[in-house]
């Protein structure tokens, strides 16, 4: 039983470990060794059987899980007109990559929920994960501004009140963004004025983050390639977002935030298990 699967490492006999000498034999005899011994054996066998079954299932499930339907993934890929031919392996890789991505997003969102002592995972947890994590910049369109504002308010009120939860719309261009304290709006594709998508505060935060990241041996999302690689990644994101922006009403700039070293270590631990 080789378990080269990465995510689904079966826990050793997770089933409730029966204490092996619980049930006294019904006869009530003082020490019916053979029968008792047999019972023990059976219980052990049962445990082993279930443990094996579980591993089997998890192995099969690994492929069931990463069968995000390949055809649909391919359709999503081909929505980009630029894309021509895709090898047979690509959708398989994408399916698994998606899974890993969702995993990572889930963990970070859950951290936020935990911080707020909630056992319900909400959209603003995801929003928080997105704004906190540099490599999730490309997702900033997904969550409406009000969600992100909640996160901001928690961090020190960069943004105004958002109690009503109604996203308000800026006119697409010409808005004096600087006036509102570092918030930039508009779509880079249409707004030459701002010209850039990633904002100074984010970069400042980024350098802080990098410093702490390198301490724990490069989480891999920026620490590994040093400053250079990170900038390239950033440049790529900018470029990509400028070219392939979804049609969303507005975007919100990244907020200053920090992710503590502890969180990183924790995440690293989880992802490397």
């Amino acid at each position: 039983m080789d378990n080269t699967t990465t995510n689904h490492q079966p826990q050793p006999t997770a089933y409730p470990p029966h204490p092996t000498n619980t049930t006294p034999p019904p006869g009530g005899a003082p020490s019916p060794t053979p029968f008792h011994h047999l019972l023990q054996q059976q219980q052990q066998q049962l445990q082993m059987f279930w443990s094996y079954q579980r591993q089997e299932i998890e192995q099969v499930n690994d492929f069931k899980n990463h069968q995000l339907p390949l055809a649909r993934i391919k359709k999503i890929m081909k929505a980009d007109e630029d894309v021509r031919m895709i090898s047979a392996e690509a959708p398989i890789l994408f399916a698994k990559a998606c899974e890993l991505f969702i995993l990572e997003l889930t963990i970070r969102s859950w951290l936020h929920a935990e911080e707020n002592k909630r056992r319900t995972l909400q959209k603003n947890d995801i929003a928080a994960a997105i704004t906190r994590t540099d490599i999730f910049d490309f997702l900033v369109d997904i969550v409406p501004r009000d969600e992100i504002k909640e996160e901001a308010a928690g961090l020190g009120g960069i943004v105004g009140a958002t109690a009503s939860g109604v996203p308000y719309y800026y006119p697409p261009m010409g808005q004096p963004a600087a006036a509102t304290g570092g918030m930039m709006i508009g779509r880079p594709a249409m707004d030459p004025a701002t010209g850039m998508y990633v904002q100074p505060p984010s970069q400042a935060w980024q350098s802080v983050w990098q410093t702490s990241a390198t301490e724990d041996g490069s989480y891999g999302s920026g620490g590994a390639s040093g400053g250079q690689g990170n900038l390239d990644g950033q440049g790529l994101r900018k470029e990509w977002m400028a070219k392939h922006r979804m049609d969303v009403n507005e975007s919100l700039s990244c907020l200053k935030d920090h992710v503590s070293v502890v969180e990183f270590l924790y995440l690293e631990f989880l992802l490397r298990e």
Partner: protein
Amino acid sequence: METGKVVAEAEELPKAIVRRVVKDTLSRCSPEDSDIIIHKDALLAFSESARIFIHYLTATANDICKESKRQTMNAGDVFKALEDIEFPEFVGPLKVSLNEFKRKNGGKKEGSSPNKEVQKKRKTGGKSTPKKGDTGEK
């Protein structure tokens, strides 16, 4: 600048599968907390995020592919793309997963060469029923 080339179709990932991945992850994050509730909006957000991720990764891999003057995006492009977009930690598990997949399906194909022929015929016929990992066709 340029027109957005991505057609935002309604192609979404199946909710059930997304939900399962999230649930599995949560149950590993906090095994004692077996009943973490996932808000409906949150699930949608996960789905959307994953979809955008596919777009993002595809675009990056595609650029790499074109740079190498090839027509068909292959596994190497995807791996390189992952590093470019700063998800290098994905590469390892992906390789393992791909090898597993090949192993499991390579056996099947080898044992049934007439099947292969049939598949080929179907493809040249213009109709490709995607078995597992259909090759790229326009």
